Protein backbone atom coordinates (compact mmCIF):
# COMPACT_ATOMS: atom_id res chain seq x y z
CA UNK A 1 0.00 0.00 0.00
CA UNK A 2 1.56 3.21 -1.08
CA UNK A 3 1.67 6.10 1.31
CA UNK A 4 0.92 9.18 -0.70
CA UNK A 5 0.30 12.62 0.61
CA UNK A 6 -2.58 14.87 -0.16
CA UNK A 7 -3.34 18.46 0.64
CA UNK A 8 -6.07 18.93 3.19
CA UNK A 9 -8.00 22.17 3.22
CA UNK A 10 -10.00 23.10 6.29
CA UNK A 11 -12.09 26.23 6.70
CA UNK A 12 -11.01 28.41 9.56
CA UNK A 13 -13.20 27.72 12.59
CA UNK A 14 -15.01 31.02 12.57
CA UNK A 15 -17.14 30.06 9.67
CA UNK A 16 -20.48 28.56 10.55
CA UNK A 17 -22.93 26.82 8.27
CA UNK A 18 -22.81 29.11 5.27
CA UNK A 19 -20.44 31.49 3.64
CA UNK A 20 -21.78 34.60 5.26
CA UNK A 21 -22.71 33.58 8.80
CA UNK A 22 -19.82 33.65 11.21
CA UNK A 23 -19.24 32.63 14.81
CA UNK A 24 -17.14 35.36 16.35
CA UNK A 25 -15.73 35.15 19.81
CA UNK A 26 -13.06 37.83 20.02
CA UNK A 27 -11.98 41.16 18.62
CA UNK A 28 -9.17 39.36 16.94
CA UNK A 29 -11.65 37.37 14.95
CA UNK A 30 -13.59 40.50 14.12
CA UNK A 31 -10.39 42.06 12.92
CA UNK A 32 -9.72 38.95 10.91
CA UNK A 33 -12.93 39.59 9.05
CA UNK A 34 -12.95 43.36 9.00
CA UNK A 35 -9.40 44.18 7.94
CA UNK A 36 -9.49 42.55 4.53
CA UNK A 37 -12.79 44.29 3.86
CA UNK A 38 -11.65 47.67 5.10
CA UNK A 39 -8.24 47.50 3.49
CA UNK A 40 -9.33 48.35 -0.06
CA UNK A 41 -11.72 51.09 1.00
CA UNK A 42 -9.27 52.83 3.33
CA UNK A 43 -6.24 52.02 1.23
CA UNK A 44 -7.72 53.47 -1.93
CA UNK A 45 -8.91 56.54 -0.08
CA UNK A 46 -5.43 57.20 1.24
CA UNK A 47 -3.67 56.27 -1.95
CA UNK A 48 -5.89 58.50 -4.04
CA UNK A 49 -5.14 61.61 -2.03
CA UNK A 50 -1.52 60.99 -1.06
CA UNK A 51 0.03 60.29 -4.43
CA UNK A 52 1.64 63.08 -6.48
CA UNK A 53 -0.54 64.94 -9.01
CA UNK A 54 0.29 62.86 -12.05
CA UNK A 55 -0.51 59.61 -10.29
CA UNK A 56 -3.82 61.05 -9.17
CA UNK A 57 -4.81 61.07 -12.82
CA UNK A 58 -3.76 57.48 -13.04
CA UNK A 59 -5.98 56.75 -10.05
CA UNK A 60 -8.97 58.39 -11.73
CA UNK A 61 -8.44 56.28 -14.81
CA UNK A 62 -7.97 53.20 -12.66
CA UNK A 63 -11.27 53.82 -10.89
CA UNK A 64 -13.08 54.33 -14.17
CA UNK A 65 -11.53 51.19 -15.59
CA UNK A 66 -12.53 49.42 -12.39
CA UNK A 67 -16.13 50.32 -13.11
CA UNK A 68 -15.81 49.07 -16.68
CA UNK A 69 -14.38 45.81 -15.35
CA UNK A 70 -17.26 45.49 -12.88
CA UNK A 71 -19.76 46.01 -15.65
CA UNK A 72 -18.00 43.41 -17.81
CA UNK A 73 -18.02 40.95 -14.97
CA UNK A 74 -21.69 41.56 -14.32
CA UNK A 75 -22.56 40.97 -17.96
CA UNK A 76 -20.34 37.91 -18.08
CA UNK A 77 -22.18 36.54 -15.03
CA UNK A 78 -25.36 36.84 -17.07
CA UNK A 79 -23.79 34.83 -19.87
CA UNK A 80 -23.13 37.88 -22.02
CA UNK A 81 -19.43 37.81 -22.77
CA UNK A 82 -18.66 41.11 -24.38
CA UNK A 83 -15.50 41.79 -26.37
CA UNK A 84 -16.52 45.38 -26.94
CA UNK A 85 -17.05 47.36 -23.76
CA UNK A 86 -15.62 50.23 -25.80
CA UNK A 87 -18.93 50.39 -27.65
CA UNK A 88 -20.82 51.28 -24.47
CA UNK A 89 -18.07 53.58 -23.32
CA UNK A 90 -18.13 55.45 -26.60
CA UNK A 91 -21.89 55.72 -26.80
CA UNK A 92 -21.98 57.22 -23.31
CA UNK A 93 -19.12 59.51 -24.16
CA UNK A 94 -20.68 60.72 -27.39
CA UNK A 95 -24.11 61.18 -25.79
CA UNK A 96 -22.70 63.25 -22.96
CA UNK A 97 -20.40 65.16 -25.28
CA UNK A 98 -23.23 65.95 -27.67
CA UNK A 99 -25.53 66.97 -24.81
CA UNK A 100 -22.87 69.31 -23.53
CA UNK A 101 -21.67 70.66 -26.85
CA UNK A 102 -24.81 70.90 -28.98
CA UNK A 103 -27.49 71.37 -26.31
CA UNK A 104 -25.30 73.37 -23.96
CA UNK A 105 -26.35 71.35 -20.93
CA UNK A 106 -24.21 71.83 -17.82
CA UNK A 107 -22.00 69.01 -16.64
CA UNK A 108 -24.31 67.78 -13.87
CA UNK A 109 -27.06 67.22 -16.42
CA UNK A 110 -25.02 66.02 -19.39
CA UNK A 111 -23.41 63.14 -17.52
CA UNK A 112 -26.65 61.54 -16.26
CA UNK A 113 -28.39 62.23 -19.56
CA UNK A 114 -25.43 60.84 -21.51
CA UNK A 115 -25.49 57.73 -19.36
CA UNK A 116 -29.19 57.18 -19.94
CA UNK A 117 -29.22 57.84 -23.68
CA UNK A 118 -26.03 55.84 -24.13
CA UNK A 119 -27.51 52.86 -22.32
CA UNK A 120 -30.68 52.95 -24.41
CA UNK A 121 -28.74 53.13 -27.69
CA UNK A 122 -26.32 50.41 -26.57
CA UNK A 123 -29.16 48.09 -25.74
CA UNK A 124 -30.75 48.75 -29.10
CA UNK A 125 -27.46 48.03 -30.88
CA UNK A 126 -27.00 44.71 -29.11
CA UNK A 127 -30.61 43.58 -29.39
CA UNK A 128 -30.24 41.53 -32.60
CA UNK A 129 -27.74 39.17 -31.00
CA UNK A 130 -29.69 38.44 -27.87
CA UNK A 131 -31.37 35.45 -29.43
CA UNK A 132 -28.08 33.60 -29.52
CA UNK A 133 -25.86 31.94 -27.02
CA UNK A 134 -22.13 31.36 -27.29
CA UNK A 135 -19.59 33.33 -29.21
CA UNK A 136 -22.09 35.18 -31.41
CA UNK A 137 -22.57 37.83 -28.79
CA UNK A 138 -18.80 38.20 -28.35
CA UNK A 139 -18.17 38.50 -32.06
CA UNK A 140 -20.89 41.05 -32.59
CA UNK A 141 -19.76 43.20 -29.69
CA UNK A 142 -16.24 43.05 -31.11
CA UNK A 143 -17.44 44.22 -34.51
CA UNK A 144 -20.03 46.90 -33.73
CA UNK A 145 -17.62 49.44 -32.19
CA UNK A 146 -15.34 49.16 -35.20
CA UNK A 147 -18.28 49.64 -37.50
CA UNK A 148 -19.58 52.70 -35.63
CA UNK A 149 -16.05 54.11 -35.63
CA UNK A 150 -16.07 53.86 -39.42
CA UNK A 151 -19.51 55.44 -39.54
CA UNK A 152 -18.29 58.42 -37.52
CA UNK A 153 -15.17 58.59 -39.68
CA UNK A 154 -17.11 58.42 -42.92
CA UNK A 155 -20.05 60.65 -42.19
CA UNK A 156 -18.17 63.15 -40.07
CA UNK A 157 -20.96 63.35 -37.49
CA UNK A 158 -19.93 64.56 -34.03
CA UNK A 159 -16.76 66.11 -35.38
CA UNK A 160 -15.60 63.11 -37.42
CA UNK A 161 -11.97 62.22 -36.91
CA UNK A 162 -11.18 65.37 -35.01
CA UNK A 163 -13.94 64.95 -32.47
CA UNK A 164 -15.49 67.60 -30.29
CA UNK A 165 -13.25 69.65 -28.04
CA UNK A 166 -13.80 72.29 -25.39
CA UNK A 167 -16.39 70.48 -23.25
CA UNK A 168 -16.99 71.68 -19.71
CA UNK A 169 -14.42 70.39 -17.23
CA UNK A 170 -14.82 69.20 -13.65
CA UNK A 171 -14.14 71.83 -10.98
CA UNK A 172 -10.85 70.25 -9.88
CA UNK A 173 -8.83 67.10 -9.51
CA UNK A 174 -9.99 66.49 -5.92
CA UNK A 175 -13.63 66.58 -6.98
CA UNK A 176 -12.87 64.33 -9.93
CA UNK A 177 -11.09 61.76 -7.87
CA UNK A 178 -13.72 61.82 -5.13
CA UNK A 179 -16.53 61.46 -7.67
CA UNK A 180 -14.89 58.60 -9.47
CA UNK A 181 -14.18 56.79 -6.22
CA UNK A 182 -17.72 57.23 -4.94
CA UNK A 183 -19.10 56.04 -8.27
CA UNK A 184 -16.84 53.02 -8.13
CA UNK A 185 -18.02 52.01 -4.67
CA UNK A 186 -21.67 52.60 -5.53
CA UNK A 187 -21.27 50.42 -8.63
CA UNK A 188 -19.49 47.73 -6.69
CA UNK A 189 -21.82 47.49 -3.71
CA UNK A 190 -24.86 48.08 -5.85
CA UNK A 191 -24.01 45.23 -8.20
CA UNK A 192 -23.18 42.93 -5.32
CA UNK A 193 -26.53 43.60 -3.74
CA UNK A 194 -28.29 43.21 -7.05
CA UNK A 195 -26.71 39.86 -7.79
CA UNK A 196 -27.70 38.56 -4.38
CA UNK A 197 -31.33 39.58 -4.68
CA UNK A 198 -34.06 37.39 -6.13
CA UNK A 199 -34.12 39.62 -9.17
CA UNK A 200 -30.39 39.14 -9.59
CA UNK A 201 -30.68 35.37 -9.41
CA UNK A 202 -32.58 35.46 -12.67
CA UNK A 203 -29.58 37.12 -14.30
CA UNK A 204 -27.21 34.49 -13.03
CA UNK A 205 -29.61 31.82 -14.18
CA UNK A 206 -29.42 33.25 -17.70
CA UNK A 207 -25.89 31.96 -17.81
CA UNK A 208 -26.21 28.80 -15.80
CA UNK A 209 -29.42 27.47 -17.24
CA UNK A 210 -31.43 29.74 -19.45
CA UNK A 211 -34.03 27.09 -20.15
CA UNK A 212 -34.87 27.04 -16.47
CA UNK A 213 -35.60 30.73 -16.78
CA UNK A 214 -37.84 30.11 -19.72
CA UNK A 215 -39.53 27.23 -17.94
CA UNK A 216 -40.32 29.60 -15.09
CA UNK A 217 -42.36 31.69 -17.45
CA UNK A 218 -39.83 34.50 -17.73
CA UNK A 219 -38.68 35.87 -21.04
CA UNK A 220 -34.98 35.27 -21.58
CA UNK A 221 -34.71 38.04 -24.08
CA UNK A 222 -36.38 40.59 -21.87
CA UNK A 223 -34.07 39.81 -18.95
CA UNK A 224 -31.07 39.89 -21.20
CA UNK A 225 -32.18 43.33 -22.33
CA UNK A 226 -32.32 44.42 -18.72
CA UNK A 227 -28.88 42.98 -18.02
CA UNK A 228 -27.44 44.78 -21.02
CA UNK A 229 -29.11 48.00 -19.96
CA UNK A 230 -27.59 47.84 -16.49
CA UNK A 231 -24.17 46.72 -17.67
CA UNK A 232 -23.93 49.19 -20.53
CA UNK A 233 -25.29 51.98 -18.33
CA UNK A 234 -22.27 51.63 -16.07
CA UNK A 235 -19.89 51.83 -19.03
CA UNK A 236 -21.83 54.76 -20.47
CA UNK A 237 -21.34 56.58 -17.20
CA UNK A 238 -17.61 55.87 -17.46
CA UNK A 239 -17.60 57.26 -20.97
CA UNK A 240 -19.56 60.36 -20.01
CA UNK A 241 -17.29 60.91 -17.03
CA UNK A 242 -14.07 60.56 -19.03
CA UNK A 243 -15.38 62.82 -21.78
CA UNK A 244 -15.79 65.64 -19.34
CA UNK A 245 -12.60 64.78 -17.56
CA UNK A 246 -10.63 65.17 -20.80
CA UNK A 247 -12.91 67.88 -22.14
CA UNK A 248 -12.97 66.25 -25.53
CA UNK A 249 -14.43 63.31 -27.38
CA UNK A 250 -13.16 61.55 -30.44
CA UNK A 251 -13.28 58.34 -32.43
CA UNK A 252 -10.74 56.81 -30.13
CA UNK A 253 -13.53 56.27 -27.59
CA UNK A 254 -14.23 53.12 -29.63
CA UNK A 255 -10.64 51.96 -29.13
CA UNK A 256 -9.99 48.25 -28.67
CA UNK A 257 -7.79 48.94 -25.65
CA UNK A 258 -10.89 49.97 -23.76
CA UNK A 259 -12.46 46.60 -24.49
CA UNK A 260 -9.39 44.62 -23.54
CA UNK A 261 -8.76 46.26 -20.19
CA UNK A 262 -11.98 45.21 -18.45
CA UNK A 263 -11.50 41.65 -19.66
CA UNK A 264 -7.92 41.60 -18.47
CA UNK A 265 -8.85 43.04 -15.09
CA UNK A 266 -11.60 40.48 -14.63
CA UNK A 267 -9.48 37.55 -15.72
CA UNK A 268 -6.56 38.56 -13.54
CA UNK A 269 -8.73 39.33 -10.54
CA UNK A 270 -11.15 36.46 -10.89
CA UNK A 271 -14.25 36.31 -13.08
CA UNK A 272 -17.68 36.17 -11.57
CA UNK A 273 -16.68 37.50 -8.17
CA UNK A 274 -17.11 41.27 -8.59
CA UNK A 275 -14.29 41.82 -6.08
CA UNK A 276 -11.91 40.16 -8.50
CA UNK A 277 -12.33 42.66 -11.34
CA UNK A 278 -11.90 45.46 -8.86
CA UNK A 279 -8.69 43.94 -7.57
CA UNK A 280 -7.57 43.32 -11.15
CA UNK A 281 -8.23 46.93 -12.13
CA UNK A 282 -6.36 48.24 -9.10
CA UNK A 283 -3.38 46.08 -10.01
CA UNK A 284 -3.47 46.60 -13.77
CA UNK A 285 -4.18 50.33 -13.83
CA UNK A 286 -0.96 51.45 -12.15
CA UNK A 287 0.92 48.54 -13.71
CA UNK A 288 0.03 49.61 -17.22
CA UNK A 289 1.17 53.10 -16.29
CA UNK A 290 4.47 51.75 -15.03
CA UNK A 291 4.81 49.80 -18.27
CA UNK A 292 4.42 52.96 -20.34
CA UNK A 293 8.18 53.11 -20.71
CA UNK A 294 7.96 49.99 -22.87
CA UNK A 295 5.98 51.81 -25.55
CA UNK A 296 4.34 49.35 -27.89
CA UNK A 297 5.53 46.37 -25.90
CA UNK A 298 3.15 47.46 -23.16
CA UNK A 299 0.23 45.92 -24.98
CA UNK A 300 2.28 42.78 -25.57
CA UNK A 301 2.99 42.38 -21.87
CA UNK A 302 -0.62 43.07 -21.15
CA UNK A 303 -1.99 40.52 -23.54
CA UNK A 304 0.60 37.97 -22.47
CA UNK A 305 -0.43 38.47 -18.86
CA UNK A 306 -4.05 37.95 -19.86
CA UNK A 307 -3.23 34.74 -21.70
CA UNK A 308 -1.06 33.43 -18.90
CA UNK A 309 -3.71 34.00 -16.28
CA UNK A 310 -6.48 32.37 -18.25
CA UNK A 311 -4.36 29.27 -18.77
CA UNK A 312 -2.42 29.02 -15.51
CA UNK A 313 -4.77 30.55 -12.95
CA UNK A 314 -8.22 30.51 -14.52
CA UNK A 315 -9.96 31.20 -11.20
CA UNK A 316 -8.10 34.52 -10.88
CA UNK A 317 -6.17 36.15 -8.09
CA UNK A 318 -9.00 36.95 -5.73
CA UNK A 319 -10.47 33.47 -5.24
CA UNK A 320 -6.91 32.18 -4.92
CA UNK A 321 -6.01 34.69 -2.22
CA UNK A 322 -9.35 34.29 -0.47
CA UNK A 323 -8.81 30.55 -0.29
CA UNK A 324 -5.36 30.99 1.14
CA UNK A 325 -6.73 33.41 3.70
CA UNK A 326 -9.80 31.52 4.78
CA UNK A 327 -8.55 27.97 4.77
CA UNK A 328 -5.86 26.13 6.64
CA UNK A 329 -3.87 23.98 4.28
CA UNK A 330 -1.68 21.12 5.32
CA UNK A 331 -0.25 17.97 3.86
CA UNK A 332 -1.60 14.78 5.32
CA UNK A 333 -0.81 11.15 4.66
CA UNK A 334 -3.30 9.40 2.50
CA UNK A 335 -2.80 5.75 3.45
CA UNK A 336 -5.11 4.31 0.87
CA UNK A 337 -3.57 6.31 -1.94
CA UNK A 338 -5.39 9.03 -3.76
CA UNK A 339 -8.37 7.93 -5.69
CA UNK A 340 -8.58 9.07 -9.26
CA UNK A 341 -11.97 10.64 -8.76
Amino acid at each position, binding site marked *: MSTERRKERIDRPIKAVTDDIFCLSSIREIAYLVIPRMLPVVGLLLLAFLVPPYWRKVMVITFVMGMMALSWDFMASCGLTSLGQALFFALGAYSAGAANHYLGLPIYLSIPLGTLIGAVISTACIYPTL*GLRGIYFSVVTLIIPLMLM*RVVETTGIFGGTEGITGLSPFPGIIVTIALSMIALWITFFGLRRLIDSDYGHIFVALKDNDRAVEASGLSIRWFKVQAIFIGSGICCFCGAFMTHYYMSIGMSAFAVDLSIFPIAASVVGGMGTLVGPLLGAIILGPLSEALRAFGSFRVVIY*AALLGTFIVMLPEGLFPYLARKYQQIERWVEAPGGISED
Partner: protein
Amino acid sequence: MLLSVLVYGFINSVILAMVALGFSITFGISRVANFSHGGFYILGGIFTWYGLIKLGMPYFLSAGLSIIIIGALGALMYKVILIRLRGLELSEVIATLSLGIVILELLRGLGVFGYEFRNPVFMDGSVDILGVGVGIQRIIIVCAGALLLILLHFFVHHTKMGLAFRGVAQQEHTALSVGINPDLVSMLSLAMGSVMCALSAVLILPLGVISVDEGYDILIKALAVCIIGGLESTLGVLVAAFIIGYIEVLTSMYISSALTSVVPLACMLGILLVRPSGIFGKSKEIEERV
Protein backbone atom coordinates in the same frame (compact mmCIF):
# COMPACT_ATOMS: atom_id res chain seq x y z
CA MET B 1 -18.83 49.07 -65.71
CA LEU B 2 -21.04 46.03 -65.22
CA LEU B 3 -18.40 43.69 -66.58
CA SER B 4 -15.79 45.12 -64.27
CA VAL B 5 -18.13 44.73 -61.31
CA LEU B 6 -18.52 41.10 -62.34
CA VAL B 7 -14.76 40.51 -62.61
CA TYR B 8 -13.59 42.41 -59.58
CA GLY B 9 -16.51 41.28 -57.45
CA PHE B 10 -15.52 37.71 -58.22
CA ILE B 11 -11.89 38.31 -57.27
CA ASN B 12 -12.88 40.16 -54.14
CA SER B 13 -15.20 37.33 -53.14
CA VAL B 14 -12.51 34.69 -53.61
CA ILE B 15 -10.13 36.71 -51.44
CA LEU B 16 -12.74 36.98 -48.70
CA ALA B 17 -13.52 33.29 -48.92
CA MET B 18 -9.85 32.35 -48.61
CA VAL B 19 -9.40 34.56 -45.59
CA ALA B 20 -12.48 33.16 -43.86
CA LEU B 21 -11.96 29.49 -44.78
CA GLY B 22 -9.22 28.86 -42.23
CA PHE B 23 -11.33 30.24 -39.42
CA SER B 24 -14.40 28.32 -40.46
CA ILE B 25 -12.62 24.96 -40.90
CA THR B 26 -11.16 25.14 -37.42
CA PHE B 27 -14.43 26.14 -35.84
CA GLY B 28 -16.43 23.61 -37.78
CA ILE B 29 -14.34 20.67 -36.61
CA SER B 30 -13.12 21.53 -33.15
CA ARG B 31 -15.50 24.33 -32.08
CA VAL B 32 -12.48 26.49 -31.33
CA ALA B 33 -12.94 30.09 -32.47
CA ASN B 34 -9.40 30.99 -33.36
CA PHE B 35 -9.21 34.72 -32.71
CA SER B 36 -5.48 34.73 -33.36
CA HIS B 37 -6.33 34.28 -37.05
CA GLY B 38 -5.24 37.82 -37.90
CA GLY B 39 -1.98 37.38 -36.01
CA PHE B 40 -1.18 34.17 -37.89
CA TYR B 41 -2.02 35.86 -41.18
CA ILE B 42 0.44 38.70 -40.70
CA LEU B 43 3.03 36.39 -39.17
CA GLY B 44 2.84 34.17 -42.26
CA GLY B 45 3.41 37.19 -44.45
CA ILE B 46 6.31 38.46 -42.37
CA PHE B 47 8.05 35.06 -42.30
CA THR B 48 7.79 34.87 -46.05
CA TRP B 49 9.14 38.40 -46.37
CA TYR B 50 12.01 37.64 -44.00
CA GLY B 51 13.03 34.48 -45.80
CA LEU B 52 12.73 36.07 -49.21
CA ILE B 53 14.21 39.52 -48.66
CA LYS B 54 16.49 39.13 -45.66
CA LEU B 55 17.75 35.57 -46.08
CA GLY B 56 17.57 35.55 -49.86
CA MET B 57 15.72 32.23 -50.13
CA PRO B 58 13.76 31.39 -53.28
CA TYR B 59 10.14 32.52 -53.12
CA PHE B 60 8.44 29.13 -53.03
CA LEU B 61 10.84 27.86 -50.36
CA SER B 62 10.35 30.75 -48.00
CA ALA B 63 6.60 30.76 -48.60
CA GLY B 64 6.41 27.00 -48.06
CA LEU B 65 8.48 27.17 -44.92
CA SER B 66 6.40 29.94 -43.42
CA ILE B 67 3.19 28.04 -44.18
CA ILE B 68 4.61 25.00 -42.41
CA ILE B 69 5.79 27.09 -39.46
CA ILE B 70 2.39 28.72 -39.05
CA GLY B 71 0.70 25.33 -39.25
CA ALA B 72 3.00 24.01 -36.54
CA LEU B 73 2.28 27.10 -34.50
CA GLY B 74 -1.45 26.41 -34.71
CA ALA B 75 -0.91 22.83 -33.54
CA LEU B 76 1.39 24.03 -30.79
CA MET B 77 -1.20 26.54 -29.66
CA TYR B 78 -3.69 23.72 -29.25
CA LYS B 79 -1.20 21.45 -27.48
CA VAL B 80 0.06 24.06 -25.04
CA ILE B 81 -2.83 26.42 -24.45
CA LEU B 82 -6.19 25.29 -25.75
CA ILE B 83 -6.09 21.71 -24.51
CA ARG B 84 -6.35 23.06 -20.98
CA LEU B 85 -9.37 25.16 -21.84
CA ARG B 86 -11.44 22.78 -23.97
CA GLY B 87 -15.12 23.49 -23.73
CA LEU B 88 -14.75 26.80 -21.93
CA GLU B 89 -15.78 28.99 -24.83
CA LEU B 90 -15.05 32.24 -23.09
CA SER B 91 -11.58 31.18 -22.01
CA GLU B 92 -10.78 29.91 -25.49
CA VAL B 93 -11.80 33.22 -27.01
CA ILE B 94 -9.76 35.23 -24.52
CA ALA B 95 -6.71 32.99 -24.82
CA THR B 96 -6.63 33.02 -28.63
CA LEU B 97 -7.42 36.72 -28.82
CA SER B 98 -4.63 37.56 -26.41
CA LEU B 99 -2.21 35.38 -28.36
CA GLY B 100 -3.23 37.22 -31.53
CA ILE B 101 -2.65 40.58 -29.89
CA VAL B 102 0.72 39.43 -28.55
CA ILE B 103 1.81 38.40 -32.04
CA LEU B 104 0.61 41.56 -33.75
CA GLU B 105 1.83 44.05 -31.19
CA LEU B 106 5.14 42.23 -30.83
CA LEU B 107 5.65 42.61 -34.58
CA ARG B 108 4.77 46.28 -34.32
CA GLY B 109 7.17 46.73 -31.42
CA LEU B 110 9.93 44.95 -33.33
CA GLY B 111 9.61 47.50 -36.09
CA VAL B 112 7.14 46.10 -38.61
CA PHE B 113 5.84 49.45 -39.79
CA GLY B 114 6.72 51.41 -42.86
CA TYR B 115 6.67 50.57 -46.49
CA GLU B 116 9.54 48.19 -47.09
CA PHE B 117 7.56 45.18 -45.81
CA ARG B 118 6.20 44.05 -49.09
CA ASN B 119 6.24 40.64 -50.74
CA PRO B 120 6.70 40.92 -54.49
CA VAL B 121 4.00 39.53 -56.78
CA PHE B 122 4.60 36.02 -58.15
CA MET B 123 4.40 37.18 -61.70
CA ASP B 124 4.25 40.71 -63.00
CA GLY B 125 1.92 41.93 -65.67
CA SER B 126 -1.76 41.92 -66.41
CA VAL B 127 -4.26 40.38 -68.79
CA ASP B 128 -7.63 41.44 -70.13
CA ILE B 129 -10.63 39.50 -68.91
CA LEU B 130 -13.95 40.52 -70.49
CA GLY B 131 -12.19 43.72 -71.45
CA VAL B 132 -11.11 44.53 -67.91
CA GLY B 133 -7.43 44.69 -67.06
CA VAL B 134 -6.56 42.38 -64.16
CA GLY B 135 -3.19 41.83 -62.52
CA ILE B 136 -1.83 38.30 -62.87
CA GLN B 137 -1.47 37.99 -59.09
CA ARG B 138 -5.23 38.28 -58.70
CA ILE B 139 -5.76 35.56 -61.27
CA ILE B 140 -3.33 33.35 -59.40
CA ILE B 141 -5.32 33.96 -56.23
CA VAL B 142 -8.56 32.91 -57.89
CA CYS B 143 -6.99 29.76 -59.35
CA ALA B 144 -5.34 28.85 -56.07
CA GLY B 145 -8.61 29.44 -54.22
CA ALA B 146 -10.48 27.12 -56.56
CA LEU B 147 -7.76 24.48 -56.29
CA LEU B 148 -7.81 24.74 -52.51
CA LEU B 149 -11.55 24.20 -52.40
CA ILE B 150 -11.33 21.13 -54.60
CA LEU B 151 -8.53 19.68 -52.49
CA LEU B 152 -10.45 20.44 -49.34
CA HIS B 153 -13.57 18.75 -50.67
CA PHE B 154 -11.56 15.71 -51.68
CA PHE B 155 -9.82 15.57 -48.32
CA VAL B 156 -12.98 15.84 -46.26
CA HIS B 157 -15.12 13.48 -48.30
CA HIS B 158 -12.72 10.94 -49.72
CA THR B 159 -10.04 10.25 -47.11
CA LYS B 160 -10.09 8.45 -43.80
CA MET B 161 -8.74 11.44 -41.99
CA GLY B 162 -11.49 13.59 -43.48
CA LEU B 163 -14.04 11.08 -42.23
CA ALA B 164 -12.54 11.34 -38.74
CA PHE B 165 -12.77 15.12 -38.99
CA ARG B 166 -16.41 14.96 -39.92
CA GLY B 167 -17.02 12.47 -37.15
CA VAL B 168 -15.59 14.73 -34.48
CA ALA B 169 -17.48 17.68 -35.88
CA GLN B 170 -20.77 15.83 -35.64
CA GLN B 171 -20.49 14.03 -32.32
CA GLU B 172 -17.30 14.13 -30.33
CA HIS B 173 -18.27 11.38 -27.91
CA THR B 174 -19.42 8.97 -30.54
CA ALA B 175 -16.24 9.63 -32.48
CA LEU B 176 -14.26 8.80 -29.35
CA SER B 177 -16.11 5.53 -28.94
CA VAL B 178 -15.16 4.37 -32.42
CA GLY B 179 -11.51 5.03 -31.75
CA ILE B 180 -11.00 8.57 -33.04
CA ASN B 181 -8.89 10.73 -30.81
CA PRO B 182 -10.74 14.07 -30.67
CA ASP B 183 -7.72 15.87 -29.25
CA LEU B 184 -5.59 14.78 -32.17
CA VAL B 185 -8.28 15.75 -34.64
CA SER B 186 -8.79 19.13 -32.98
CA MET B 187 -5.06 19.76 -33.06
CA LEU B 188 -4.94 18.87 -36.74
CA SER B 189 -7.92 21.09 -37.42
CA LEU B 190 -6.13 24.02 -35.86
CA ALA B 191 -3.01 23.23 -37.84
CA MET B 192 -5.11 23.01 -41.00
CA GLY B 193 -6.86 26.30 -40.30
CA SER B 194 -3.53 27.97 -39.65
CA VAL B 195 -2.02 26.54 -42.83
CA MET B 196 -4.90 27.97 -44.83
CA CYS B 197 -4.51 31.27 -43.08
CA ALA B 198 -0.80 31.42 -43.92
CA LEU B 199 -1.47 30.26 -47.47
CA SER B 200 -3.96 33.05 -48.03
CA ALA B 201 -1.45 35.50 -46.55
CA VAL B 202 1.25 34.33 -48.95
CA LEU B 203 -1.12 34.70 -51.89
CA ILE B 204 -2.93 37.89 -50.97
CA LEU B 205 -0.32 40.04 -49.24
CA PRO B 206 1.76 40.68 -52.38
CA LEU B 207 -1.13 42.86 -53.53
CA GLY B 208 -0.22 45.39 -50.88
CA VAL B 209 2.10 46.10 -48.01
CA ILE B 210 2.29 44.03 -44.84
CA SER B 211 0.98 46.10 -41.96
CA VAL B 212 0.06 45.10 -38.45
CA ASP B 213 -3.29 46.84 -38.54
CA GLU B 214 -4.34 44.65 -41.42
CA GLY B 215 -4.16 41.71 -39.01
CA TYR B 216 -7.09 43.12 -37.08
CA ASP B 217 -8.99 43.91 -40.27
CA ILE B 218 -8.56 40.36 -41.53
CA LEU B 219 -9.94 38.92 -38.31
CA ILE B 220 -12.98 41.16 -38.53
CA LYS B 221 -13.56 40.25 -42.17
CA ALA B 222 -13.23 36.54 -41.48
CA LEU B 223 -15.66 36.81 -38.59
CA ALA B 224 -18.19 38.76 -40.63
CA VAL B 225 -18.10 36.23 -43.46
CA CYS B 226 -18.37 33.28 -41.10
CA ILE B 227 -21.24 34.76 -39.13
CA ILE B 228 -23.24 35.55 -42.24
CA GLY B 229 -22.63 32.14 -43.74
CA GLY B 230 -23.07 30.18 -40.54
CA LEU B 231 -20.03 29.61 -38.42
CA GLU B 232 -19.13 26.06 -39.37
CA SER B 233 -20.47 25.66 -42.85
CA THR B 234 -17.96 25.70 -45.70
CA LEU B 235 -20.72 26.22 -48.21
CA GLY B 236 -22.01 29.07 -46.06
CA VAL B 237 -18.59 30.70 -46.08
CA LEU B 238 -18.51 30.55 -49.87
CA VAL B 239 -21.96 31.98 -50.30
CA ALA B 240 -21.37 34.69 -47.70
CA ALA B 241 -18.03 35.59 -49.24
CA PHE B 242 -19.72 36.07 -52.60
CA ILE B 243 -22.52 38.10 -51.07
CA ILE B 244 -20.15 40.41 -49.20
CA GLY B 245 -17.64 40.47 -52.01
CA TYR B 246 -20.16 41.65 -54.56
CA ILE B 247 -21.88 44.02 -52.16
CA GLU B 248 -18.53 45.64 -51.39
CA VAL B 249 -17.67 46.14 -55.04
CA LEU B 250 -21.16 47.36 -55.90
CA THR B 251 -21.06 49.81 -53.00
CA SER B 252 -17.75 51.23 -53.99
CA MET B 253 -18.75 51.39 -57.63
CA TYR B 254 -22.21 52.88 -57.34
CA ILE B 255 -22.62 54.38 -53.87
CA SER B 256 -19.45 55.43 -52.11
CA SER B 257 -16.13 53.74 -51.62
CA ALA B 258 -16.00 55.14 -48.10
CA LEU B 259 -18.78 52.77 -47.08
CA THR B 260 -17.13 49.57 -48.31
CA SER B 261 -16.07 48.49 -44.87
CA VAL B 262 -19.30 49.45 -43.14
CA VAL B 263 -21.66 47.65 -45.49
CA PRO B 264 -20.55 44.06 -44.78
CA LEU B 265 -20.79 44.67 -41.06
CA ALA B 266 -24.24 46.16 -41.46
CA CYS B 267 -25.17 43.10 -43.56
CA MET B 268 -24.00 40.95 -40.72
CA LEU B 269 -26.23 42.69 -38.22
CA GLY B 270 -29.16 42.44 -40.61
CA ILE B 271 -28.62 38.72 -41.14
CA LEU B 272 -28.34 38.15 -37.40
CA LEU B 273 -31.67 39.86 -36.90
CA VAL B 274 -33.40 37.65 -39.46
CA ARG B 275 -31.47 34.37 -39.27
CA PRO B 276 -29.50 34.33 -36.04
CA SER B 277 -27.35 31.34 -36.92
CA GLY B 278 -26.38 32.50 -40.38
CA ILE B 279 -27.57 31.48 -43.83
CA PHE B 280 -26.35 27.89 -43.69
CA GLY B 281 -25.90 27.41 -39.97
CA LYS B 282 -28.89 25.05 -39.72
CA SER B 283 -27.59 22.44 -37.36
CA LYS B 284 -26.96 24.95 -34.66
CA GLU B 285 -30.28 26.68 -34.79
CA ILE B 286 -32.00 24.56 -32.16
CA GLU B 287 -29.13 24.88 -29.75
CA GLU B 288 -28.19 28.46 -30.30
CA ARG B 289 -31.55 30.04 -30.60
CA VAL B 290 -32.98 30.76 -27.22
